């Protein structure tokens, strides 16, 4: 923590060639492991339910294996120095998600979701490969700062024109597919925030008045944060999507803090967030109900109306105990609506137990940690902020939805990255992993004295300056 970029450079000296191929070997081994684990899960479901290996097991394994292998080859070709853990985590989580959805499909014979999810996963991996192949240098994205934010805002607002589904206006329906544009908007916003903050860092660090221990920002730069806050509140009110709004705002506060180092931003952020939360909690019955359910998950049982979704979710987690019931042997389908999407983690909790759930959360933790590691290793502020932003996005999303279904925080509808049913989410998450792969490769390239010149401003070490 004490020494910044310079030290990192000296810690990872060239020659890189041998190390780089070694990294890819590790990646390949981990991918094989991830595919085998997923196929094992798929077989376990079939064995538990019918006593036979499901007929599609070989096809499922081959499909997942081929997808992972092509992605691996793309990484090997265009990002040879990238972090070898990122892609296998994506493969494993996506494979596990497919297993869980397939498993739940057995309970809802009329409404299969796994085939569609497989198509979306394929699209996601294709996007991953596309990003890795096309985006040779992440700094190119800086050029599209304002394109990103415009597209993001359009994506966020488009669903308002479509009818509400289950109380939230976050879907659009095109050619039979439901798309959640807000998912794509998150990545674009992360790109925009990173670019905007990297460009305006110095201006934003100007201190305003000091109140007690907090250094308040000046009024001139307060504008952007207020604007973002307003947009998120608008999203919340118009689309009734508490989750996206929360995620969006949380991401901005984290990135702002990292960019400026001002605790004042956090204070302002938290103040605005709580103001917004209280106001919305009071005014929006939809949100108010969610909070009530969180505080009293069993109120509906006591009222004789039977268990609500949160109660059913808690029952599912509790049934899992330490080791779980085993894949295919739980009854998480009692949760009913959204069991394959928002509540997918309950199935994992029930059938894989605390052990399996911890493993899944640690996988996310590892993904986030690898993102942060790339951010620390990079030297250009845009890259650093983008890596931190994307990693935080994953962490925040996992926290919001996993915390929601386990009763830690009020439930807000959101997809568990990679696991949950939902095409937009899977595609977006593959894009995030692709960007992290690109960023980690860039970090390695710059340290290896790579062919591409590193801009002057990116090489400065801010660690010492702030100390």
């Amino acid at each position, binding site marked *: 923590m004490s020494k910044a*970029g310079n030290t990192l450079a000296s810690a990872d000296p060239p020659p890189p060639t041998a190390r780089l191929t070694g990294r890819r070997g590790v990646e390949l081994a981990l991918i094989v492991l991830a595919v085998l684990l997923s196929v094992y899960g798929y077989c376990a479901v079939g064995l538990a339910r019918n006593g036979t290996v499901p007929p599609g097991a070989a096809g499922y394994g081959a499909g997942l294996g081929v997808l992972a292998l092509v992605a691996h080859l793309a990484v090997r070709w265009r990002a040879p120095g990238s972090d070898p853990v990122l892609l296998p985590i994506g493969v494993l989580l996506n494979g596990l998600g497919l297993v869980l959805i397939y498993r739940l499909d057995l309970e809802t014979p009329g409404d299969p979701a796994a085939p569609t999810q497989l198509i979306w996963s394929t699209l996601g991996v294709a996007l991953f490969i596309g990003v890795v192949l096309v985006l040779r240098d992440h700094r190119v994205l800086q050029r599209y700062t304002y394109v990103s934010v415009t597209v993001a805002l359009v994506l966020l607002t488009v669903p308002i024109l479509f009818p509400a589904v289950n109380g939230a206006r976050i879907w659009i329906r095109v050619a039979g597919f439901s798309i959640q544009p807000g998912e794509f908007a998150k990545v674009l916003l992360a790109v925009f925030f990173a670019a905007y903050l990297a460009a305006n860092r110095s201006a934003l660090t100007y201190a305003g008045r000091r109140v007690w221990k907090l250094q308040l920002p000046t009024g001139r730069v307060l504008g952007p944060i207020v604007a973002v806050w307003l947009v998120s509140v608008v999203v919340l009110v118009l689309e009734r999507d508490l989750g996206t709004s929360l995620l969006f705002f949380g991401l901005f506060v984290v990135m702002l*803090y990292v960019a400026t180092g001002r605790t004042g931003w956090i204070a302002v952020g938290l103040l605005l967030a709580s103001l917004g939360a209280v106001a919305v909690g009071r005014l929006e019955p939809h949100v108010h109900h969610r909070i009530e359910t969180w505080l009293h998950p069993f109120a509906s*049982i006591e009222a004789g109306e039977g268990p609500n979704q949160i*109660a059913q979710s808690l029952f599912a987690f509790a049934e899992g105990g330490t080791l779980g019931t085993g894949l295919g042997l739980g009854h998480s389908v*009692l949760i009913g609506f959204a069991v394959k999407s928002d509540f997918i983690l309950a199935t994992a909790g029930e059938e894989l137990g*605390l052990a399996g759930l911890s493993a899944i959360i640690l996988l996310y933790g590892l993904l986030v940690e690898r993102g942060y590691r790339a951010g620390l290793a990079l030297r250009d502020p845009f890259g650093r902020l983008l890596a931190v932003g994307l990693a935080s996005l994953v962490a925040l999303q996992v926290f919001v939805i996993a*915390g929601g279904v386990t009763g830690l925080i009020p439930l807000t509808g959101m997809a568990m990255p990679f696991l949950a049913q939902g095409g937009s989410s899977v595609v977006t998450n593959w894009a995030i992993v692709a960007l992290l792969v690109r960023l980690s490769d860039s970090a390695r390239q710059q340290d290896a004295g790579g062919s591409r010149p590193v801009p002057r401003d990116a090489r400065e070490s801010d*660690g010492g300056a702030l100390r």
Partner: protein
Amino acid sequence: MTRHIRHAAVFCALLLVALLVNAARVQVLHADAYDSNPANRRDTIARYQQPRGDILVDGRPVTGSRDTGEHLRYERTYPLGPLYAPVTGFASQEYGTTQLEHTEDRLLSGVAPVLAPLPLWNEFTRSRNAGGDVVTTIDPAAQRAAYEGLRSRKGAVAAVEPSTGRILALVSVPSYDPALLSGNGATARDAWARLNADPDRPMLNRAVQRTYPPGSTFKVVTAAAALDAGVVKNLDERTDSPDPYTLPGTRTRLVNGAKGCADATVREAFVLSCNTVFAKLGVATGVDRMRETAESFGFNDGDVRIPFRVAGSTFDTSVDRAQLALSSIGQYNTRATPLQMAMVAAAVAGGGQVREPYLVERTTRAGGGTVSTAGSRPVRRAMFPATAIRMRELMRGVVEDGTGKKAAIPGAVVGGKTGTAQHGLGNSGTPYAWFISWAQGGEDMEAKVAVAVVVEDAANRRTISGGGTAAPIARAVMEAVLKP
């Protein structure tokens, strides 16, 4: 910036750690509370995921399980539903369980820890054992004879084996088909509503859950108490009994249905069923001795289980002499279940000893291995053996040349006692016809069966008499048991 990236990283790590801690809270710390929440359907689903163990009569199951393929998979079936309903009860997905289905539920549903191959095995493997079977003491021929005999009437039959206490028949009519309640759909709900609204209360197990005034059949208890107490020394000595008998301390005059009761001997009075003689005899014996004998027969014990609970039969002990007189002829607050009265007959037949009645011979695993057996039961002495011998004489007299001739079985020794019990406000209700008896085959060393029959309804008083209506049913049951 590096420092702040690390701060942000710590923040993200904290979020994930919070998730892990909370997951441990839900999945380990609070797991038991959530698992046992009544709204959590998992236990119910697991319960019906496998066929339930069966209840066996004479080696054959009288229950079954049907795979519905629904969410709650197996439903109970009862091939001979109404016949065995007082024994099995029902096992409903909606309305719980009753009778043997209730008391033996843990064994039948496979959760009884005793079924596990190793201690804590099921907790570890999360498996459930196949349901065990319950083997009953019921004699199918006796059960069917009792059911056929009562078919068009309303009443109950209980039969026990005097030497062991095994319950041979337990019938309650009108009965119901427990299979109607097995499921969880509209059929079950309709049946439930209909059965509960039925004024005849078909789900009431009259043989053990309902008490009736025992009427004259209680004179067996009074006679035994008087003989034990030495109030009567010679059965053939004339008693000083007026007819009608004015209840002590009142002006109420007790009369008899039969003629020839004035100063009758105890033997005559028993055969003729003289109220006056036995009311006076009860008063002469005194409330303490009466209570002692009644309680040794099983009265005033509210906690008899066979293994389901039997309603307590009562003999009121805080009575004045007039009330004692009425209590001694099975009126006032004296009430008994048919099973209790079968035990009274069994005690006479069994040399004065009362054995606790039981319905479950043994329980087995699905594979047939024995889990538990009835074992030996505690024995109580209700009267001296010498008294029992004299009581057998009195009861034989009733069948041979008294009110119970219709219970006679050629080639067998049969003893009995009739009863007609008044009830209702001012005795306005249709009287209950009683018959209690025991039978010993010509070649048997001991009595094989003791029966109590109660018939609730009859069009007129002549047909409702214990000897006319109830005795033939008792005979049919006894014949069914004696038949090799």
